[in-house]
């Protein structure tokens, strides 16, 4: 389940009105989510949730569902 908090961070960072995020949505399916905006999205998530990702953790993430899981694993600790 993708949280509204995560959805809103992504929408705000990519200047989008709305987008139907699913578990298996990948970055290249979302308008404007290119490799340059990718770091802005990641930085925004880190700031909002007050977490820090390791490079390898981020590289492993294949879709939004996995991104959500990564955030959950960081915030639950």
């Amino acid at each position: 389940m993708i949280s509204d908090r995560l959805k809103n961070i992504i929408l705000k960072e990519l200047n989008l009105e709305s987008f139907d995020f699913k578990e298996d949505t990948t970055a290249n399916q979302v308008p404007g989510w290119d490799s340059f905006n990718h770091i802005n999205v990641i930085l925004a998530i880190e700031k909002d949730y007050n977490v820090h990702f390791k490079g390898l953790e981020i590289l492993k993430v294949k879709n939004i569902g996995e991104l959500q899981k990564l955030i959950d694993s960081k915030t639950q600790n």
Partner: protein
Amino acid sequence: MFSYIDFHKLLQLFVYDPQDHIYFSTSLFLFLFFALLIVYRLFAKSRNAKIYTLIFFSLFFYYKNSGYFFLLLFFSTFLNFYFGNWLYKTKSQAFKRFLFLFALIVDLGLLGYFKYTNFFIQILNDLHSGNIQPLDILMPIGISFFTFKAMSYVIELYIGSMEPTNSLRDFCLYMFFFPNTLMGPIDRAAKFLPQIQSENVITKEDIGRAVFLIICGLFKKTVIADYIGLNFVDRIFQVPLKYTGVENLLATYAYSMQIYCDFSGYTDMAIGIALLLGYKVMDNFNVPFIATSIADYWRRWHISLSTWLLDYMFKPLQMSFRRMRIYGSALAIFLTFIAVGLWHGANWTFLAFGLVHSTFMAVSLITLKYRKAFYDKVGLSGTKTLKVFQIFITFHLLLIGAIIFRSDSIPTAINVFHQIFTFFHGAVFFQWIVGYQKVFILVLLGYVLHFIPISVDNRVQKMITKSPLIVQALLIAIMIIVAVQVQSAQLQPYIYFSF
């Protein structure tokens, strides 16, 4: 009748000869490939037999092209297979990292030794005015391609984005696979390995596409690239100062088409040949000269290399520099393009080529916001005019890179720019068209074919798919005959124009 056959000579055909390679466009290859297809057809029911046939043929192909360096291909294959699988199973993160770095260092160390040792000796000599003798190092053909293929396996296993294969045989086929060992596409283990174990059915569409690609590839490589290279481009870039600026500029336009046709022609054939064997390898080119920016160009040119570097170098670097925001991205671009430059060869020109492209990309990234605002303001955003303008500018920026890339040294490149900007003599253009009619027609044809809409390509491909097998075979045969004719055509005489 066998008394007419010189068996010794026949045997020689199968032995490595540094002067005699078998590329896809050579008659020996076409003959052997035809034989391979027949054997492959006979083994249609046994997957194992097909895999071993391909491994054996691929090893012969590599041996024929590079002699005993096939041992290096073996080494690279075993190293990356065992280290990849070992690190995947390892629980301790620190040891995993150690195994990963070890494999990476050996891979890059070997590549570096064969490719760059003499370049560094030369730099050392230049710096200290020393006199270290260059080493007698012969570079194993295709090492840059197969090393990157092997590294993709270890890197993906380290990241955890793919499952390892337990079959050394399958991994050997991935590494040896003759269509792409010499010049790419640099395939990904994650995409290729699953195909070996799947029912690789060859559809009618696959055959049609393969025939289309092989015909296009042969045409681009032998008719356009080789002809304009030998008869025009090479001469100008050998001594640019002997020619006017307009000839230097025309040679640059011609060279851009030549290198595109040469490289994409070869990979078209590789993709087509792989398809006939039931394997889908990565795409490598997607109409690069219609790119509207340098970044767009790198999504269309040598895609298998650019995505490799994007995934395994640029993204990790960019992620670790992320606190620097846009400047972190610019730094990652800069470092990645130094790698792009060096990957192409050990010469200052390749390094300069990388620097020029990274500068274009970084400036483009940093000014993107302002350019977009400007286009919005003047009402150009999303218009065809803007697109044509962007294609034109991008193409000419690419020419700057092409001049540096083609020149054998930085001073030669400077001479080309010097002639274009200070010794143009535009009127020579008309004499040039008359003197180099065939070159002119081929370059023009290359660009026209490049810019025709992709839908035309698809229609031709469909027509070939629908035609009977005998017609498809005939089409390839005609193309081979044309290619042989062009290859054996006499060189055009040198022409010096008066101005």
